[in-house]
């Protein structure tokens, strides 16, 4: 009769095996690892991550979710803390670095987490692991930004966005409807200009800068 085994045989048919084949396991993990938490804690701005008690105040009031689907600072923290590295990389790596540093989360966090800095630290953690491809987003942005400053003496908003997307191989993303409509709104409200003005006689300064930086 009832044996102490994980098989269940009824009328000669073994049922558990069949069910196991039908239903892929939904269990996520067996062990929580704090390896990633320890790493983020050590990064600049990452120290307060362990204070978080997962209340969701940050995500509830965050500026971004209206524009960026699934952007969720509380969840980023949770994933790092529980060591769900794969979910963090597969589902969140393109989200984390989009934080606009508005600081709403930090000002409101009831536990004293510096949430904005922690989100930055998590982005840095991912960058250090080279999950973004050859050039990290920060590095790419820095290059484009400095390049423009040296070349023109100022930033042209439209140009910098275009160059940044093209440098990270995502020009297609820039042409997405939501991005275009956001750009259009910013244009019509005067937040950005189509062509940045020129700075007089910048050529000479630019020349000197380039020599200096050689």
């Amino acid at each position: 009769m009832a044996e102490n085994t994980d098989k269940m045989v009824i009328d000669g048919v073994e049922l558990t095996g069949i069910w196991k084949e039908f239903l892929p396991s939904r269990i996520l993990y067996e062990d929580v690892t704090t390896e990633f938490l320890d790493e983020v804690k050590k990064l600049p701005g990452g120290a307060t991550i362990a204070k978080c008690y997962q209340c969701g105040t940050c995500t509830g009031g965050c500026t971004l979710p209206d524009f960026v689907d699934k952007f969720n600072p509380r969840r980023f923290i949770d994933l790092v803390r529980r060591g769900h590295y794969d979910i963090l990389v597969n589902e969140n790596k393109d989200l984390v670095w989009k934080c606009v540093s508005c600081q709403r989360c930090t000002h409101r966090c009831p536990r004293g987490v510096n949430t904005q800095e922690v989100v930055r630290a998590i982005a840095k953690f991912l960058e250090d692991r080279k999950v973004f491809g050859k050039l990290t987003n920060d590095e790419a942005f820095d290059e484009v930004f400095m390049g423009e400053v040296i070349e023109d003496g100022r930033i042209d908003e439209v140009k910098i966005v275009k160059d940044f997307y093209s440098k990270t191989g995502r020009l297609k993303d820039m042409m997405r409807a939501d991005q275009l409509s956001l750009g259009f709104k910013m244009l019509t409200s005067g937040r950005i200009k189509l062509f940045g003005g020129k700075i007089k006689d910048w050529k000479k300064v630019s020349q000197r800068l380039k020599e200096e930086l050689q």
Partner: protein
Amino acid sequence: MKTVLVIGGGVTGLKAASELAGMGYNVSLVEKEDYLGGQVVKHKYYKLAPDLRPAGDVIDPVIKAVESNSNIKVHKHSRVVAVSGNAPEFKAKIKNSKGESEETFGAIVVATGFEHFDPIVKQEYGYGRFKDVVTNSEVEEMLNPNGPTKGELKRPSDGKVPKKIAIFQCVGSRDKQVGNPYCCRVGCVVSTKQAIEIKEKCPDSEVYVYYMDMRMFGRGWEELYGKAMEDYEVIFTRGRGAEVTLKNQQLSLRAEETVMNRPIQHSVDMIILAAGIAAGDGTIDAAKVLGIKQNDYGFLAPKDDFLSPNESSKAGIYIAGADKGPLDIENCIVEGAAVAAKVASNLKN
């Protein structure tokens, strides 16, 4: 026989006074307001958690036991303004509008209670800016038939009965931003009770509670929580309220539904803030006058939390009830009796 001074006429002080008088001591009870009963009477609590028992059933007998006892002298509208001497011989100056008097006491019991946290500090919740964002103590008053709305839950803005009501938990509690990292210990059960009362009054209303944890550790509290879900269909959402704005003339709240990993926007007619418990000015004032220790949050600190929970840092001065930290009424009554026993046994020795 020595006389004992009890400061504070809330449920704790009242219980302590009548127990001491019952043991034959003379008691002077000093209360700064012109009524007895403390917060329960001030905010016209109507029904008490968890049994939804009329608050009067509990507070009236406690007040009566004091008022009818000839060993207790009640000083309403009075304050203790100066204390000198040491145990067991204190001289205290009691001041009221008519003047000052000095009496000698063998022991002093401090039962000065708490004040409700003022949510105006939490700007993002809009209290003070939006009329229909109210506190849980304002709701207590509304639900009382002798209250300002004669027992009806009405929106302050237009007097209409709200249909969709959201309750934010932990307002001014568990919150380092406002300097109160501790739990208010009664907010969860009080909100659950209020949700049920609202549903009983208006069965077609919708009540949503935004919480981080429902802390239901008291007698019958967990059962009340179950009842709110099963019998009254109160919706509990695990996510702390993040902000309140006005959209098309309607209150709109944001929070994260953490179980779903997504932020939500929710339009409601009224928002109740489960405002926490803070050490009141009365308690802070008493601590100064008596020179006894407070903890980091202003509450009175026992000499030893485990071994002498009702003794202050100074011999002969005792503490009890919600002035030591958030506490429910049942336990305040226990505290009142406990402090009376401690005072009596110390005075005997």
